[in-house]
């Protein structure tokens, strides 16, 4: 039994939050349940923004159209996580990808899967920027970003 040191206070602060994704966010997340990834279009610069946004951050105007983008895309960057912290979503090692889905002008982030991580140095060499990846959807979907299990490398003709 260790003795407590005087003047050293340890506490875990739990502060419950309930955030709303806002009407645009809610619509985007609902679409995930139907295996649809949606973007919104800026009327000025015509970029397709994914995840769907209420307004274009650059032009500062409301987006006007909703479009469906592919669940296939190109890997623009990635990393392999090999460290731990409180509340981490997965136990390391694991891969995260920065993915530009076909038809989207912005990238978004998700797990990369289907790659052998038993030797992480080797795995890092196997993952290539420019690789084509596709979403692996969960069977049971709840309208969360994790309705996609991860993105897997694919070969296309």
């Amino acid at each position, binding site marked *: 039994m260790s003795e407590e040191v005087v003047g050293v206070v340890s506490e875990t*602060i739990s*502060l*419950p939050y309930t*955030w*709303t994704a806002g009407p645009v966010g809610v619509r985007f997340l609902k679409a995930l349940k139907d295996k649809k990834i949606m973007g919104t279009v800026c009327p000025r610069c015509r970029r397709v923004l994914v995840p769907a946004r209420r307004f274009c951050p650059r032009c500062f105007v409301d987006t006007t159209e909703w479009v469906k983008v592919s669940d296939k895309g190109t890997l623009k960057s990635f990393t392999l996580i090999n460290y731990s912290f409180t509340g981490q979503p997965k136990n390391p090692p694991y891969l995260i990808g920065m993915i530009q889905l076909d038809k989207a002008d912005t990238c978004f982030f998700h797990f990369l899967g289907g790659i052998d991580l038993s030797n992480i140095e080797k795995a890092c060499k196997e993952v290539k920027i420019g690789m084509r990846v596709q979403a692996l959807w969960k069977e049971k979907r709840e309208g969360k970003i994790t309705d996609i299990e991860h993105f897997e490398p694919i070969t296309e003709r």
Partner: protein
Amino acid sequence: MFKKFKGGHMRKVAIVGVAQTNHGENLQQTVRELIYDVTVETLAKTNLAKDDVDTVVASTSDYWQGMGCSNVFHYDAAAGYLKDSTKAEEDGALGFMYAYMRVLSGHFDTALAVSAIKSSEISSISTLTNLYCDPFYQRPIGLGDISSAAIQARLYMHRCGITEEQAAKVSVKSLGNAFYNPYAHRRARITIDDVLKSRVVAHPLKELDCCPASDGACAVLIASEDKAKKITDNPAWIKGVGWSVESYFLGDRDLLDVEALRVAAGKAYGTAGIKDPSRQIDVAEICAPYSFQELLWYEHLGLCGVGEGGKLVDEGVTEMSGALPVNPSGGMLSTNPYTARGLVCIAEAALQLMGKAGEHQVSNVKTTLAHSMHGLAGQLHSVIILSSD
């Protein structure tokens, strides 16, 4: 007309446009979208484009938002994409002060002060305000926003003979005034008795002595003289500002001798040439989340003598019909979007000067006072004097 300081002239700066959300509960937009809304509205009202905003100072808070580095979340929502935008945390009034300094410096001609909060996203406000306390001495006692205000109120009753009835008059006035403010959160036609009979939350504070926890956002656009005159026919000129802070530990302070507020008011009055505040100020928007505090702040703002806060409210001086209406908007007892509330007070003080306060417009307004505060029992205070010339 310039103010002189050593080596130069001080620029004249004015508030040229303001916008607020309809403050309330469970607003459906995210904080990011609320900031976008008030920014877009401010630009529309002033007929400006996003590139006319030279710099942005936001005042959100990480704990309140549940996100680290809160301002990154809404950086571009405040027309900030690739702009020099920064954050003065916790109190919209401090964001305003910093925006003012940026324009005064001459490096920027326009600046937007903006804030938003969604109190509804936090299940336990008191758990959050308990976190204002240091982990060693004050936190384990469970002190927070309400309890510290209550201790202050009890002392006020004891030392100055302020009564719960006098404090209740502030609640009646505030919630009643709110009927004439389309942006207000809480409105109610109540009596002193209703306040006295409401549930004791932390003696002597009853439920109706206490602010709500609101969702809301506010934006205030300021501009240097040349720009201001082009943007609007009736700018609200910034005549004097001051802000100051008390010692941290509640026990170190005399909770009734709020030096920080006296110093802040003194600075603002000094620059603005206010020697007799109760005569020279036409309307005041004061940040008083607890009824008793409004009376205490009257005294420190020099609207009455020490210990006379109760007397002022008894005489009806601060009613809409009185000589110095305080909180025609309904104040914080009606609307309390914590980190944004300072900007709301400033916005309301500006609206009065610009003649745009609608149904709660006071007549013949030439000089207004805006006040904000944050921290337990009001640890840090800000005072701004605005005028129509």
